[in-house]
């Protein structure tokens, strides 16, 4: 249908539209008009993706000079594929309606592992191996050697692409990963490099977060994206953690040992080259004297090593004299390495800030701050000069050099924690140096700075105002949308007590309590009797789940549950888990139903949907707080308090509630879907917890559904399920939660729609 959004003609590929989609598009349009950033929360299963795509594409078509590109970031490869499919639907609709030929180029980009078509390379199993092998076939000096020595193997796909691929632009159309591979096979071009080249002029790019947020990758892939792009982060409720992870470095004893070997290899290579080809080193030396500007002109394929957020001053300045020659630099690295080794040889935990670390390193091994800052860039230059083909081996020394650069560049926002052993095994020495980033805004700052509109959206972003604070940006729109429903298809219940009136909570003091565990067991038992098909239960951690299941077994509860349904358990092993999931779905298909026991923050809680009969009830046992004793977390909380005035408790609760909401949100994947959401902890009834749930869940939490006992829950649940089991047709929804074009244009509907969005 054709919509008029605030004066913009939008083609929407479906015959019906949800009211909240319309409202969402309105907000989005305003954000784009203002050329600002936005934070938008809309429940999952209400068609966020298609709303986003159809509006932004329409905007691009209407104002081709204002918005040149859409960069759509998602989390996983299946999600990326889903987005491309939606986009294909939209584009088909466009061609059908306008009868004009499609001139849009949209493509997905993923790692080499997913895109490689070279028969040898693509058969490798791990991403790192593929990258390393690919590099050993496509690096510029390898190809130069190939000219003089044709027996040197190169990748024919890359050669072909390099020879002709750049002149002929890829034809307009929608390309997912398989399409790209097919296209590559047909033409004999490398799909990966083709895609990387094509994103520069594509209208829509779909890829993973890391291509934009991880400074090491972003520097290569996304550096040249136009300023007038719209960037969308979908499923962005975890974006702060992604940012932090991309900037943090963990160094163990093993890393240092591997680094040691790397340094030795470097030294040997240098002495060998010095004998055979001293001119090369001299050439590098000359370049470094001149400054890095020249060195910066790296060719596309030499991309493997790059710098985490190169500060500008480095690019403009020459490398300090103390690490200019190759030998001195290797000596420098050796000293740095030995220093780190000495630091790891401790018996108690040390926490210090970057300036303290720098001071100490100067006193111990006379290393100044400036050469440290140039370390990553210097190493990159050296590796390129030495023409070391197999780059995968050098990951350790690269990591160390990144650490050196980061620690000397940022005096704030990072902390160094050295732990001699893991908390769980205090007798086994396993020293780790955590260089942990505490400020997610460091990694995302370039994105906000560069692009005119950045949209952060997800099903669970509550409370909205915390995201601009921790990511340090200024949104022009912040809005939360509710789900308009023809029938209340979600039923959140907070169970606080067992039938014996003992409080149910996963609080640390009482979590091992016999009565609490028994009550949890009884809850699951009762639910297994009344809920048809699948039940998904989430625990707060793997250990807690193991304990509880063990004691359920002893108490005979497990046996009783198994009379009703089969039980599957998520484990830390990915293969086992996907097996369990598959069998769980099979069991649900059979009609008897099953129970999946899993863990909040685990694989199941993020990204796996339990549509319809796969999840008729979700039970959240306890509040999924993070492990608060971890020093990294403590440091981060302290930083948040000092820098952003966010109190520890607020942040912990916020973090716990977003995960809880993520978990229970797995069951509702659309308006025809329905499910029970059971929060089994009395602490959920408190205002501070409840207030942090997304608005679309909060709305259905009445006073009557707080602090229930188990049998009250069973009563309410039975009632709800019986109601929902009635036939539900499209006609019931029409006009209420599903609109045709005429209905949409009616006066009072527009008024209603205006109320859907709640500005934060």
């Amino acid at each position, binding site marked *: 249908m054709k919509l008029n959004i605030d004066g913009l003609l939008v083609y929407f590929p479906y015959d019906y539209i949800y009211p909240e989609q319309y409202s969402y598009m309105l907000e989005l349009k305003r954000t784009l008009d203002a050329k600002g950033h936005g934070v938008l929360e809309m429940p999952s299963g209400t068609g966020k993706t298609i709303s986003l795509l159809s509006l932004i594409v329409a905007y691009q078509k209407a104002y081709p000079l204002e918005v040149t590109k859409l960069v759509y970031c998602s989390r996983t490869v299946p999600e990326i594929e889903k987005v491309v499919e939606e986009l294909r639907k939209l584009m088909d609709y466009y061609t059908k309606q306008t009868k004009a030929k499609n001139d849009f180029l949209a493509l997905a980009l993923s790692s080499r592992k997913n895109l490689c078509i070279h028969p040898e390379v693509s058969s490798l199993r791990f991403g790192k191996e593929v990258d390393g092998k690919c590099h050993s076939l496509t690096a510029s000096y390898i190809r130069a050697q190939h000219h003089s020595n044709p027996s040197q193997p190169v990748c024919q796909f890359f050669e072909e692409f390099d020879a002709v691929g750049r002149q002929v632009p890829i034809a307009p159309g929608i390309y997912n990963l398989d399409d790209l591979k097919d296209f590559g096979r047909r033409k004999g071009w490398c799909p990966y490099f083709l895609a990387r080249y094509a994103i520069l002029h594509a209208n829509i790019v779909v890829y993973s977060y890391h291509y934009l947020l991880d400074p090491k990758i972003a520097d290569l892939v996304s550096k040249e994206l136009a300023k007038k792009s719209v960037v969308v982060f979908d499923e962005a409720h975890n974006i702060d953690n992604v940012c932090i992870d991309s900037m943090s470095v963990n160094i163990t004893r093993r890393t240092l040992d591997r680094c040691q070997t790397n340094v030795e290899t470097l030294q040997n290579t240098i002495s060998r080259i010095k004998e055979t080809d001293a001119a090369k080193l001299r050439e590098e030396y000359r370049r470094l004297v001149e400054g890095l500007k020249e060195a910066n002109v790296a060719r596309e394929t030499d991309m493997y090593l790059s710098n985490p957020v190169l500060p500008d001053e480095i690019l403009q300045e020459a490398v300090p004299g103390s690490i200019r020659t190759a030998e*001195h630099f290797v000596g420098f690295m050796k000293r740095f390495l030995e220093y780190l080794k000495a630091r790891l040889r401790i018996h108690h935990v040390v926490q210090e800030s970057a300036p303290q670390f720098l001071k100490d390193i100067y006193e111990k091994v*006379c290393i100044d701050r400036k050469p440290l800052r140039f370390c990553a860039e210097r190493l990159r230059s050296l590796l390129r000069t030495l023409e070391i083909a197999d780059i995968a081996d050098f990951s350790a020394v690269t990591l160390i050099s990144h650490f050196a650069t980061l620690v000397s560049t940022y005096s704030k926002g990072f902390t160094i924690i050295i732990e001699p052993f893991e908390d769980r095994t205090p007798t086994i020495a396993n020293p780790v140096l955590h260089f942990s980033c505490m400020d997610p805004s460091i990694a995302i700052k370039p994105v906000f700075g560069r692009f005119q509109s950045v949209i952060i959206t997800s099903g669970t972003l509550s409370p909205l105002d915390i995201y601009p604070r921790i990511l340090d940006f200024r949104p022009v729109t912040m809005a939360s949308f509710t789900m308009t429903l023809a029938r209340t298809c979600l039923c959140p219940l907070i169970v606080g007590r067992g039938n014996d009136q003992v409080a149910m909570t996963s609080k640390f003091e009482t979590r091992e309590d016999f009565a609490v565990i028994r009550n949890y067991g009884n809850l699951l038992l009762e639910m297994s009797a009344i809920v048809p098909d699948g039940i998904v239960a989430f625990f707060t951690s793997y250990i807690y789940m193991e304990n509880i299941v063990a004691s359920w077994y002893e108490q005979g509860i497990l046996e009783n549950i198994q009379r009703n349904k089969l039980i599957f358990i998520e484990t830390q092993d990915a293969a086992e888990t996907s097996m369990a999931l598959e069998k769980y779905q099979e069991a649900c298909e059979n009609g008897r139903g099953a129970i999946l026991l899993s863990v909040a923050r685990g694989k199941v809680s993020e990204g796996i949907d339990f549509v319809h009969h796969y999840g008729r009830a979700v039970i959240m046992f306890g509040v999924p707080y993070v492990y608060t004793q971890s020093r990294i977390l403590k440091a981060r909380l302290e930083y948040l308090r000092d820098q952003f005035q966010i109190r520890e408790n607020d942040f912990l609760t916020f973090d716990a509630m977003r995960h809880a909401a993520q978990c229970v949100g797995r069951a509702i994947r659309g308006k025809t879907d329905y499910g029970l959401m059971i929060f089994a902890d009395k602490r959920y009834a408190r205002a501070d917890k409840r207030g942090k749930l997304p608005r679309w869940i909060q709305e259905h939490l009445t006073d009557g559904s707080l602090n229930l006992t188990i049998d009250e829950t069973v009563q309410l649940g039975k009632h709800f399920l019986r109601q929902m089991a009635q036939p539900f047709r499209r006609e019931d929804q029409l006009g209420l939660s599903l609109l045709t074009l005429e209905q949409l244009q009616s006066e009072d509907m527009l008024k209603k729609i205006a109320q859907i969005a709640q500005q934060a």
Partner: protein
Amino acid sequence: MDDQGCPRCKTTKYRNPSLKLMVNVCGHTLCESCVEMLFVRGSGNCVQCNTPLRKSNFRVQLFEDPAIDKEVEIRKKVLKIYNKRELDFYTLKEYNDYLEQVEDIVFNLTNNLDVERTKQMMEQYQRDNKDIIQKNKAKLTREQEELEELLLQEQQGSEQRRLETLQEEQRQLQAKRKNKQALLDELEISKLPAAVLLAQHKDRASQLETQIEKQKQNVKPANIFSTGIMMGQTVSLVSVSRVEEVLYVYQPLCFDTYGPPVPELDQLGRLGYLNHVRTASPQDQAGGYTSGLACHRAVQDAFSGLFPS
């Protein structure tokens, strides 16, 4: 680390966890007891390279690789002499060349290349640059200064925060105590029934609680973004309205001196006013002074107010 051991007595860290390894200027290791035994007289030769050593120069080995210990030792010595700062050079390139030279010296000394010549070079340098070395001894490098400053800031910040939280807690505690005391006093003197008083007290206590909670929340509300723009403020998209006004026109200042018109500066000489004024010396003129200026001011002074108003 466990496999490290003394090359002479073959004791390892694994067998004797309290083993202390020592290293001397030549970069070879010995354990503490061997040092005690071999260097009873205070000096002797290295077991491995025969370099004459002194017992007092033995240091505890900090790093796994004794060569690093040796290098750091040498480096510290060299840096004491080569202590020029970045500011002592005109260009960055010169400074970088200097740094490289220092690095070369350290490299040579640690790897025993050209030791004699390098030592001579160092001595030469020391003689040539005596005063600079002396002068820079106490000075920290710019980077060091920056670091010190950062550390100081950090310390002060954490100290201040600690104090603030402490004060806050104290204040809350006091308020609670006061409340309790008030209840006791009231129970003692008031004629109301105790149940009412207790209810009142409970009310007050809960009020206090909410107050504290509220205070906590707005300790220092972050209402400003790092860009300096207030939070929660929506950006208005209306363009700034243009104010249409008449342009400002300059009008020269005009005032009445109540006297005869003063001749212009450049006409003073021609009219003979300068005849009896001292001519400006070249020193005076350097600063832009001319005799006309003083004369003009004096004439202005003399003429003004001559006519009665």
